[in-house]
């Protein structure tokens, strides 16, 4: 019996590596610390009522933000481990197998569990406020989406200490990801972690699309919407078309692994190439899903900090819609080298290059907006300015990659690694950080410190170029991606060493940002006006942080830059008409989202290990939760006028 348990434990827990022991210890310590603090300060009830069961989009946004910053840390540590291993030739720091696992989890976590949730954080924190709504279309579903994402992410992260991590790359091509290539549980963790959180992402796409279509303030026509909201709109449309493809692709891979089917196997008539087509039909749009909101963020920030209406509003909207459509017609550029005919390659090369046109339009519009504007450079603007050169280089190298014949040279080289990090970090991470700095005072009521932030900005930026510029040359020199070591006679040592220094500079930048947050919680400049940047859109018309009902009275959305318009009117002595308060209709909290997601987690964990009893119990739990929700009819309540008055008075607003 004891032997059996020992065998099981040896199989179940990943052991034998100091990194993993370190992770074990820190997981245990952090858990103990959290439990202790919550118990000591008697905060369990508070945590449950105010956060874990909340359906308030602002709180859900904050939870997304925290989770994504944690994942940025985890993915960043992975990145530093890899760069350490590659700093010099023949370093015996990570073994080949280990290196494979780390680049796989790094890529997966960064895109799906860092970029996506940071994007959803901004959706949640901003969109309802910006369109003058009190909530999203489906608050309950919104909470469910968050918990699905969170528990899906935890499932994948667990693979590091239990069972073993996936190692087939972030898109896990077969036959490597098939049972024959990855017999362990790592690949199952990957499938279930992404599948569970992917359902959440799809639901968020639907949720915000309907929110934007149906819940805009009176008078706000579609062509009066702020550009960030427009970017969310185009992103949601893309999500709705792309994510079902991912769902099916992962499901088919799982069916192959679990039931011995032959979709993508090398035998039995399976076609690995089918997988590669399918995964990129999701994967390429996915890249645009994460970049489009960044375009929206820059548009807001550039307008606000130049004190001008955005230049070329209509062309901005049009460009975003074009990009989201074109993103579906470019996927083949990820495998130009895999033997499609020249015509096919030409079509996809041209469609890929075509995306540069609307993107260029956007960059010019931002520049024209800044031109002759009264520019102030605060944190959000700083990151926006850092983004522009970065994205231009990334775009240019992207067009180089899109030249199909040339791609035979760049394919799978470090040139490619440098290119996509240039867009993903320069575009997505810088963009979302700009957004975080911009809307932070709205959600938390204080600004993040400028001085520490500026240091962090320069560390990130300089680190970025130091890290990735050498990689273009490494790529042209013949260094391929996913190699865990190389020898002295390749001549790659010095460039790799420089690149690693850059990576650590970015790491230092991240640490400074954490310090910036901690410092600002205590000493940051408080936002008493609700409008710290002299903003233009509706979210700046209410106090910071907003009351949980957002707007005491429904705002008027019939002017472009609605809040700016009100401010101009006030300056001219025209007061907006006084509105009567009414009881406010709000959704009730619910425990179902977190419980149901936990059951999903249990199901995923069970199927990962092939324990059907556990997987099926998890699914039954999910079904029970669905029934419970379906039978709940008492889902909303009203905030009485008196209470609204009191809350507004407390925030310094007389109504």
């Amino acid at each position, binding site marked *: 019996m004891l032997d059996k348990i020992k065998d099981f434990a040896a199989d179940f827990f990943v052991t034998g590596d100091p990194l993993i022991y370190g992770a074990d210890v820190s997981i245990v310590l952090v858990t103990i610390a959290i439990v202790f603090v919550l118990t000591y300060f008697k905060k369990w009830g508070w945590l449950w009522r105010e956060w874990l069961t909340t359906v308030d989009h602002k709180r859900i946004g904050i939870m997304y933000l925290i989770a994504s910053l944690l994942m940025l840390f985890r993915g960043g540590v992975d990145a530093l481990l890899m760069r350490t291993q590659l700093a010099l030739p023949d370093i015996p720091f990570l073994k080949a197998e280990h290196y494979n696992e780390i680049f796989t989890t790094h890529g997966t976590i960064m895109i799906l569990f860092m970029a996506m949730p940071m994007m959803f954080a901004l959706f949640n924190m901003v969109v309802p406020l910006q369109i003058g709504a009190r909530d999203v*279309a*489906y608050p309950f579903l919104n909470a469910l989406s968050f918990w699905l994402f969170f528990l899906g992410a935890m499932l994948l992260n667990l693979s590091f200490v239990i069972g073993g991590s996936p190692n087939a790359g972030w898109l896990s091509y077969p036959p490597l990801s098939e049972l024959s290539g990855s017999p362990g549980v790592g690949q199952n963790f990957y499938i279930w972690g992404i599948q569970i959180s992917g359902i959440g992402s*799809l639901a968020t796409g*639907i*949720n915000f*699309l*309907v929110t934007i*279509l*149906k*819940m805009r303030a009176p008078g706000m026509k579609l062509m009066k919407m702020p550009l960030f909201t427009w970017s969310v709109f185009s992103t949601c449309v893309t999500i*709705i*078309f792309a*994510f*079902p*493809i991912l*769902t*099916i*692709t992962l*499901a*088919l891979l799982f*069916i*192959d692994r679990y*039931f*011995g*089917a*032959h*979709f993508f*196997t090398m*035998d*039995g*008539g*399976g*076609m690995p190439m*089918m997988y590669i087509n*399918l995964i990129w039909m999701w994967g390429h749009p996915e890249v645009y899903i994460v970049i489009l909101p960044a375009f929206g963020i820059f548009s807001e920030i550039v307008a606000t900090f130049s004190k001008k209406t955005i230049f070329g509003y209509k062309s901005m909207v049009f460009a975003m819609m074009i990009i989201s459509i074109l993103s579906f017609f470019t996927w083949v550029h990820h495998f130009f080298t895999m033997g499609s005919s020249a015509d096919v390659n030409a079509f996809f090369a041209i469609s890929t290059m075509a995306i540069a046109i609307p993107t260029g339009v956007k960059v010019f519009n931002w520049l024209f907006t800044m031109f002759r504007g009264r520019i102030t450079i605060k944190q959000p603007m700083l990151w926006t300015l850092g983004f522009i050169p970065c994205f231009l280089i990334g775009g240019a190298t992207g067009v180089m990659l899109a030249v199909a014949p040339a791609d035979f040279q760049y394919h799978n080289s470090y040139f490619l690694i440098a290119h996509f990090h240039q867009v993903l970090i320069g575009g997505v991470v810088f963009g979302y950080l700009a957004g975080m700095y911009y809307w932070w005072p709205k959600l938390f009521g204080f600004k993040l410190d400028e001085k520490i932030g500026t240091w962090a900005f320069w560390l990130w930026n300089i680190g970025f170029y130091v890290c990735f510029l050498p990689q273009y040359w490494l790529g042209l020199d013949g260094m391929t991606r996913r190699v865990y070591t190389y020898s002295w006679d390749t001549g790659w040592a010095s460039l790799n060493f420089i690149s690693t220094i850059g990576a650590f500079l970015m790491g230092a930048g991240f640490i400074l940002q954490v310090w910036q947050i901690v410092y600002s919680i205590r000493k940051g400049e408080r936002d008493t006006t609700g409008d710290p940047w002299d903003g233009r859109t509706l979210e700046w018309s209410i106090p910071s942080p907003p009351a949980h009902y957002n707007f005491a009275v429904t705002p008027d959305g019939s002017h472009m830059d609605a809040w700016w318009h009100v401010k101009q009117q006030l300056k001219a002595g025209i007061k907006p008409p006084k509105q009567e308060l009414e*009881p406010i*209709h709000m959704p009730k909290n619910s425990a179902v989202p977190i419980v149901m997601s936990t059951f999903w987690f249990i199901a995923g964990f069970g199927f990962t290990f092939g324990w059907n009893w556990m997987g099926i119990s998890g699914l039954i739990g999910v*079904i029970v939760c669905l*029934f419970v929700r*379906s*039978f709940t*009819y008492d889902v*909303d*309540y*009203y*905030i*009485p006028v008196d209470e609204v008055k009191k809350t507004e008075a407390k925030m310094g607003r007389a109504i």
Partner: protein
Amino acid sequence: MNHHIVSPEVHEHHTQEQESMKMLGFWIFLVTDVILFGTLFATYVVLVHNTAGGPDGKELFELPGIVAETFILLTSSFTSGIAVLQMQAKKVNGMIFWLIITALLGLSFIYLEISEFVKMVHEGATISTSAFLSAFFTLVGTHGVHVSVGIGWVIALMIQLKKYGITTVTKRKITNFSLYWHFLDVVWIFLFTVVYLIGVM
């Protein structure tokens, strides 16, 4: 809590607004389901000839059973439509009656489908026999799972109808259900054509 602080009319107005929003969301959900099935159909079409020496559709499919399934599913779509008509006529009992018929038809459809699958497995045509059969079982099975979900759903809705009668909320739920049910019907027509008819040809 606090429902009394607004008049019933105001509350009803909010409810109606929300219910119409939920309908829109459901339509969009159906769009995602279309893409989901579209991807499965595409996979099937690509893999249909990869039988790896195993049996193909011509040897396996027996049209009479499939035609019966088709007939049953179409009828159930029709009966769910009658249920909606009963709803508009505000007749709860009639509605429940027709929904029961719908659920029973759905159950018999599932029964026939499972027997068909079992028979094929006994003949040695399993999901792991060939890529063609993997795609076949997954595509048809996904539709079957959808139908089963629909049956569970309509049972829950009938209980709610008994309890609350025809309200704004139950009306929306039933409308969405019937939408879903018709949608599955349409998917089946495609399945019937692409998989079975072309398969035996």
